[in-house]
């Protein structure tokens, strides 16, 4: 048990340090480590965990929490979650402090301005990639586009969009 926890901690702490682009970019490597290298989960169990994590709200690192839980119970959940969070968060903390300290330096100013369009382009791409993964018929494409228009045009709570998306797609199921 302790051995498994140590292995969980080591595996996910290392992954945390290389997880540029977040968990989705890391997914193939997580799968390789969990299923092939350590044999903690079967392929089917991993696919299930992925589906469950996707259906849950929150940052998608909760996939790692779920893997930890299924491998070693509550201690596994805590260890895996901390291991994937702490190294990258510590780096972010240091980077934030560094940028605040040198906030008047022209180089930091340049970097800040440069990062804005990068973030915008990638977010735009993420929206389209998600649509391509999820939207396989006319109703789902319509839901996505309507949701995008709603968010773009109003300041209302996005929860309306999620609720209506669910309702519409269930209603479509019962159309004659």
């Amino acid at each position: 048990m302790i051995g498994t926890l140590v292995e969980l901690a080591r595996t996910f702490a290392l992954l945390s340090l290389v997880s540029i682009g977040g968990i989705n970019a890391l997914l193939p490597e997580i799968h390789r480590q969990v299923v092939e290298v350590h044999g903690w989960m079967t392929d089917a169990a991993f696919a299930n965990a992925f589906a469950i994590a996707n259906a849950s709200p929150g940052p998608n690192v909760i996939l790692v929490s779920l893997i930890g839980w299924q491998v070693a119970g509550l201690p596994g959940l805590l260890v895996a979650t901390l291991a994937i969070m702490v190294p990258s968060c510590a780096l972010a903390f240091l980077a934030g402090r560094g940028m605040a300290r040198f906030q008047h330096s022209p180089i930091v100013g340049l970097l800040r301005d440069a990062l804005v369009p990068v973030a915008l382009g990638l977010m735009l791409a993420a929206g389209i990639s998600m649509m391509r993964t999820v939207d396989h018929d006319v109703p789902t494409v319509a839901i996505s586009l309507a949701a995008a228009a709603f968010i773009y045009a109003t300041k209302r709570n996005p929860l309306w969009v999620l609720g209506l998306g669910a309702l519409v797609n269930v209603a479509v199921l019962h159309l004659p």
Partner: protein
Amino acid sequence: MLNDRPLRSVGKTELFLGFLKIGLMGFGGVAPWARYVIVEERKWLTDKEFAELLGVGQILPGPNTVNASVIIGDRFQGPVGVLLCLLGQMAMPVVIVMALAVVYEHLSNVPEVRAALIGVAAASAGLVLGTALKMIRNIRPTPRALLVVGLGFAAVALLRWPLVPVVVGLVTLALVLGFLPLLKRGR
């Protein structure tokens, strides 16, 4: 990073509750909800400041919104703020994911449940798309910056190039484009 204007102070409870909401609502990606709560609803940051932090979060390892929230927590309430932001955004999702894991076997066979989940996922994708478009509208990037936005979008969404080299290339390009006008002025 927030040196362009005086910091609006954000208390510890407010920080925790804000991120609790972000975590609880963040289906299919936290970024749109983070923007909604932080920029639109509570006005802790402007769109530009939020995009800067998201960009910083992107070039560091780890999920970009989690990284951004670490920096936000530190700016408003120091290390305690960091812990509050992280706890707030993880607490409910972890409980929910465990509950879902327990009932998933039964629920995943109910067609209505499947349809509802797919509907939420489709709406979430639209949420990300709409939020990105709205941020572009509000920030009004320069033509040079728009070029970077367009190239990043094309590389990842259309050509499906791997993220890490794209990010490295884009940041380099954006830095060069930002540096050119300075050179001209210096001459």
